[in-house]
């Protein structure tokens, strides 16, 4: 699969959004809203809060489309990081991260192949591919990454939660992300 077309298409859509193109905004929403909402929902476990986060993400897209830098990642990755960060911020403000971290830690192994609702905005094969990439990570990397991505804990808190030295946690996160990117190489390049 050569998704560079899709990538260029997304990048082009973001540029068009910067020029106040409603159609481009709609296409991006239809294409990625499920993924972004799902990330927020996983972090917040609250549909109303997740809805607010998704709303914020697309309003931010509207405001910041002009400053989007393709060198730092594809639009979907940029938007998903944005959704994740906003959800984490909200989660922190709701002071829920502690109990959620515990939940994530308990849930992490074994890896769950989640497909509650097949999304219409993402290719099924692509989702499966992404799932497989996470599933193939060594347990300790997957656990550190899942905790870092979904819980919003600090480095030290992750280290405490996993009872691992800080350096080990950082290395696992870095190696895990690199491995994920390598796994996705065929899909993304």
């Amino acid at each position, binding site marked *: 699969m050569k998704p560079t077309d899709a990538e260029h298409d997304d990048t082009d859509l973001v540029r068009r959004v910067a020029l*106040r193109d*409603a159609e481009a*905004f*709609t296409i991006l*929403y*239809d294409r990625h*809203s*499920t*993924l*972004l909402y*799902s*990330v927020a*929902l*996983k972090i917040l476990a609250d549909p109303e809060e*997740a*809805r607010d986060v*998704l709303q914020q993400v*697309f*309003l931010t897209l*509207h405001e910041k489309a002009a400053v989007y*830098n393709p*060198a*730092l*990642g*594809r639009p979907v*990755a940029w938007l*998903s*990081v944005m*959704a*994740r*960060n906003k959800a*984490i911020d909200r989660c922190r403000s709701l002071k829920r991260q502690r109990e959620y971290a515990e939940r994530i830690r308990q849930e992490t192994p074994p890896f769950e192949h*989640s*497909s*509650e*609702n097949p*999304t219409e905005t*993402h290719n099924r094969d692509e989702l499966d591919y*992404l*799932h497989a990439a*996470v599933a193939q990570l060594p347990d300790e990397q997957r656990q550190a990454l*899942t905790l*870092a*991505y*979904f819980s*919003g804990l*600090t*480095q030290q808190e*992750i280290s405490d939660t996993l009872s691992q030295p800080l350096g080990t946690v950082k*290395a696992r*996160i*870095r190696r*895990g*992300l*690199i*491995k*994920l*990117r390598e796994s*996705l190489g065929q899909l*993304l390049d």
Partner: protein
Amino acid sequence: MDDSLSENAALYVLGLLTGDEQAAFERALQEDPALAAEVRTMTEGTLALAASAPQVAPPPDLRAQLLAAFQTETDAGQVPAAPLTVLPPPSHGLKKTSDSRSGGSPPQAAPRLLHLLPWAAAAVLGVMFAQQKQELTSTRAESSKIKADNVSLTERERHYLDAIRISEAAKAEASTSLASTREALEKAKAGLEDLNGRHSTLVAELNALRQDSQLDKTRIAVLGSLLENSPKAVAVSLWRQETQQGLLVVENLPALPPGRDYQLWVIDPSRKIPVSAGVFKVDVDGKVRLEFKPVAPVREASKFAVTVEREGGSPTPDLKQLVVIGG
């Protein structure tokens, strides 16, 4: 790429750097394309983590709401709210005015002010025009927001109305079902009372027989139904070995079609074939009392059975047509 820089790129993407660390990293990021590439690698990596969340579609009304907001902002953005520009009056050049502002002798101040009157008027009109434009833009934006809110509220209202309709339908269905269950319960109750009454009758008859001094010489057999369509069918057989005579009391047996009879059989283990004890029909209530005497001597009446046979009876029972049996 240095491992610690790469680690920082990962932590940066995940928002795990502290304030100072993040500021330093962002400075380095602006100067180092390799670091930007590393951030891209890490960012792409997080996409797989995002996809590992169970995929759930967002609320459908949000799309319309966001699009309305986008449209509103876009419409508002098409009219520049600031800076306000004032057009020069037709009879005076901007340069001249500018020059007169920057310098000029005081004695000429009054005429200069007079010259400025059209400028002042134009400026006032321009400001008023710009203010009206701003107000119009603001009103449009407000109107679009209200429209978007209305869309959302209408959808929510429709959703609630649907929920109420579904709830009312379920309530009506539950009421019907409850009424039907009550009716069935009443029928079952009546049937039970009827059975209890008949049971009492049979018990009374049994008690009457027990009072009979010759009861010990009487064998009593209760014959249970084998009929799926008449599970309540029951028969009691009283048999006196000594006199080779008996009495059969039957209840709830279905009426037979023309050309068919019920036939009573006495099963004697010393005989290969059951002994016929006569044929009978039941009345409209499915009842009969039949005094019987087998067609051949019975050494031991171990069981009694009733079958459906051709009219007038058969020499051997058709066991496929067994109606009641007991001993």
